[in-house]
């Protein structure tokens, strides 16, 4: 089995409050494995611990307990970070021309000219920043800043891309562009770890995803694994009275939604009533349904330390 691109092993992160009495668990027994070559979606309500997990992976902070590995090295291993591209949420940069910024971050990753110059030009072109390459990034709109952030994250052609809300400030065209870039990265064998609140986007491009609630992984799996539920079914039948089964009539067919436990008895009732069962389909939830269900069921954000 190939080593994981990113691995969290029973990590707990406790934010200690100096003056206030309450401490906050950002992550608790947090374990997650991201395989190489996949686009992995990382979801959770605000304050669930997503950004903390990302910062731990990059060595920007240290776990209270537990450990983790990124590209086969422990978290915080500086040379490994040269193989990672990172875009932070609420991106902030120095007040310098966009081209110089991208080049500066590439150089920090050990890139040298002429490769650095070439990649900088490519990235600016990919993110449609060529025309503003000489403009001060401090005066950019949020969307342009995010494009600059993506350009600097990709300039070193990373094996692992860690993106925290990469499209939150982009217009629909920009989102499509980013989606295409991420799909191209996957085709090239790169791994993408994508934290986002754009559920439709995650649903479209992610191979697997995890939902984090109150510092723990609440669900992890492929989209189809997570969205298909065996709890309720829709039975499509014909030749019966819709009122008898509390169903809805569509194009001459009756659609009856039943819990799994009643599935067999309802089918028997349809047959006894002289009807015909056309199809039985499990109900597929939307990602939003699942997300809301999990978040509301667990109270969402951080967990305060229990006395």
């Amino acid at each position: 089995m190939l080593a994981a691109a990113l691995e969290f092993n029973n990590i707990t992160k406790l934010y200690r409050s100096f003056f206030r009495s309450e401490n906050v668990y950002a992550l608790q027994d947090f374990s997650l494995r991201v395989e190489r070559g996949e686009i992995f979606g990382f979801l959770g309500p605000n304050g669930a611990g997503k950004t903390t997990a990302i910062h731990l992976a990059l060595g920007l902070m240290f776990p209270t307990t537990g450990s983790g590995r990124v590209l086969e090295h422990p978290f915080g291993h500086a040379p490994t970070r040269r193989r990672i591209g990172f875009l932070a949420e609420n991106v902030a940069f120095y007040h310098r021309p966009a081209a110089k910024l991208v080049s500066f971050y590439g150089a920090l990753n050990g890139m040298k000219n002429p490769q650095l110059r070439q990649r900088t030009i490519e990235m600016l072109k990919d993110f449609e920043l060529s025309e503003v390459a000489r403009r001060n990034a401090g005066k950019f709109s949020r969307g342009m800043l995010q494009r600059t952030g993506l350009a600097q994250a990709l300039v070193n052609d990373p094996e692992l891309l860690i993106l925290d809300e990469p499209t939150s400030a982009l217009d629909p065209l920009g989102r499509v562009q980013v989606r295409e870039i991420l799909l191209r990265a996957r085709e090239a064998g790169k791994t993408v770890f994508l934290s986002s609140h754009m559920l439709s986007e995650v649903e479209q491009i992610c191979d697997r995803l995890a939902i984090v609630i109150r510092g723990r992984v609440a669900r992890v799996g492929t989209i189809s694994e997570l969205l298909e539920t065996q709890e309720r079914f829709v039975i499509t039948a014909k030749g019966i009275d819709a009122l008898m089964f509390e169903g809805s009539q569509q194009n001459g067919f009756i659609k009856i939604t039943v819990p799994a436990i009643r599935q067999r008895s309802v089918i028997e009732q349809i047959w006894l009533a002289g009807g015909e069962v056309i199809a039985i389909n499990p109900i597929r939830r939307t990602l939003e349904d699942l997300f809301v269900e999990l978040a509301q069921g667990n109270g969402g954000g951080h967990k305060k330390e229990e006395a």
Partner: protein
Amino acid sequence: MRAIVLIGANFFRTQWLVISIMAVYLIGISGVFGLHEQHTEVVFFLRMHGGYVLFLSILVAIPAIEAERKSRRILAVLSKGIHRWQYIAGLLWGCMMISGLFCLLLGGITALLCQQGNYPNDGLLPLIIVLFLTCSLAAAVGLFCSIFLHPLLAMGATGAILLFPMMTESAGFYPPAEAFPVAAMAGILRIFQFRSAGSAIWSIAVSAVLQTVVFLLLGSAIFGRRDVTISPE
């Protein structure tokens, strides 16, 4: 090494406003001194502005890390393939570039004023070199304290570390000058006359270099074990 130079140059660039104001002030005030030039005024100019340059080194070093953390710009830098010690060394390099520029400016203006008035400028070059080295130490101590203290507390702690002998003088305790190079430099500036510098000034220089390295290593070790992002509210 390249990362240190890049971070240092970048820090220098971010301080352009402070640098411009101080440079304009130094050049402007030197014009005033040049108009009514007397030997005592040149000495006063050097003494006073030597102290300013020392203070400026601390002033730019202390808020450096906190400003980067609060603006979240530190995330993009430290997520790259650099070590934490390289980041601290880069900031120190940036502070050294700033103090180096002002030491150069101060030395150049003083030499020019001396030349205009036909006064001797003996001891000026060694003084400026040692001033630069003590400025570097002041910046290193400022950075060190700001790693684990709020900038205001770091300012107090830096002052206490650097000017310890001045606080103990009243109690009749006089620690060796070499142990506290910045305080020794402040003392030298206070009584400086254009005379050939003795060998004592070089022992202060060596001590300043060694202490700068020690504070850089200590600061890097502490910074390497700290979370750089701010915890959620």
